């Protein structure tokens, strides 16, 4: 149980972070993409289109984008994936109901269902990941730009979700009893066993994590962090994960999208 002093300090900290998220004054090494923390071998793997396993999902995504056997093709409504680049770099956003925060994979799943396809099994469905990879690849270089909605009521909801994400960022969890901030803000560049801690900017999703030997969504990666500190994993689709993703994206505002990337 935190003492009153700890609770006030934590509250003040996350309020500061939520505000500072809009400021530009982060130290230089905190604005690096995870790409900068890859070993030369893994960077080389990512850059080799013939050898990189990401290519398997990219090809699948390109085929899915134009496939019209199970309903209108994505292309028929959206045109080329590059035309959606700006929008892709603005997820997560509030859905039509003004309450639910949805990310890119949620949007893809909703679109697929709406266009008559059988519902995907979840964010880790290979078809969803392939489409996400295809879109993120086309959005490479697009600057991450999350802004509050113009409408006052929506903005209030959005701000509340951002604050919730900032709170999660500084909340100690798990048997290891650490918060995200302890590694990814306070110990960037330090070695954790054989891995170098990055500032955790979400520029390279969906990510081929060598540990998974598969492509995975940002949701999976966030759940993996909870696993890392030996905490109970939030369920897939948990709003807390969307709040945290919103906070991470706002914190990364101004960084360009890397496209789907290799990570350890």
């Amino acid at each position, binding site marked *: 149980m935190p003492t009153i002093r700890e609770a006030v300090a934590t509250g003040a900290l996350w309020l500061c972070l939520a505000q500072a998220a809009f400021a530009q004054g982060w130290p230089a090494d905190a604005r690096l993409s995870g790409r900068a923390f890859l070993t030369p071998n893994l960077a080389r793997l990512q850059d080799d289109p013939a*050898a990189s396993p990401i290519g398997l999902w990219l090809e699948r995504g390109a085929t899915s984008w134009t496939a019209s056997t199970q309903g209108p093709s994505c292309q028929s409504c959206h045109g080329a994936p590059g035309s959606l680049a700006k929008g892709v770099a603005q997820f997560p956003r509030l859905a039509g109901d003004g309450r639910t925060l949805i990310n890119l994979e949620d949007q893809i799943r909703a679109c697929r269902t709406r266009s008559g396809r059988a519902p995907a099994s979840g964010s880790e469905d290979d078809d969803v990941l392939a489409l996400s990879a295809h879109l993120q690849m086309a959005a490479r270089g697009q600057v991450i730009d999350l802004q509050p909605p113009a409408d006052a009521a929506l903005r209030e909801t959005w701000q509340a979700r951002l604050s919730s994400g900032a709170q999660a960022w500084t909340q100690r969890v798990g048997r290891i009893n650490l918060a995200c901030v302890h590694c990814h803000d306070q110990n960037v560049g330090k070695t954790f066993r054989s891995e170098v801690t990055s500032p955790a900017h979400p520029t390279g999703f969906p990510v081929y994590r*060598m540990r998974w030997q598969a492509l995975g969504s940002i949701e999976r990666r966030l759940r993996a962090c909870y696993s890392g500190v030996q905490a109970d*994993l939030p369920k897939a689709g948990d709003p807390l994960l969307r709040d945290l993703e919103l906070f991470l994206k706002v914190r990364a505002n101004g960084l360009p999208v890397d496209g789907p990337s290799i990570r350890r």
Partner: protein
Amino acid sequence: MKHPHTPALVPASTRLPSRSRRLLALAAPASLLTAALPPAARASETRLSAELRNRKYLPDGISIDFPPLADTGNAVPITVEVQAPAGLEIRSIEILLPENPFPPAIKLNLPKPQARYRFSTRLRLASSQDAWVIATFSDGSQRGAFAPTVITSSACFDET
């Protein structure tokens, strides 16, 4: 089911006893690997490793590109280049991973034997070990070489 290409090299005694295999199956996924012991202290090295070294294969003509420090045991890139001795040609090239539960990792058979061959793949290593490359030539003779690697530890456990 017996592994389809367990070579004569692997005596039955190097297969893990069933209790160890059950423990391995219950243990953390293959991605959670322990840091390697320095070579001098590798007391748990298998008999196959020692046997391969005792055969005193000539390594001439075999070059192995293998990272000495692997980012992950799940996919370690390896490039092998074999140059057959004068007058001979390569019939097959095999990679053995003595510390893996099933040491034969890959075998390439060349229907038309070649004087020179170069190939790449990605290996999955259960632990830090030497990757052995054995080339068999048109007259049945063999040459062999190895390259060591150390598997580095993951920072955090990932159960997703």
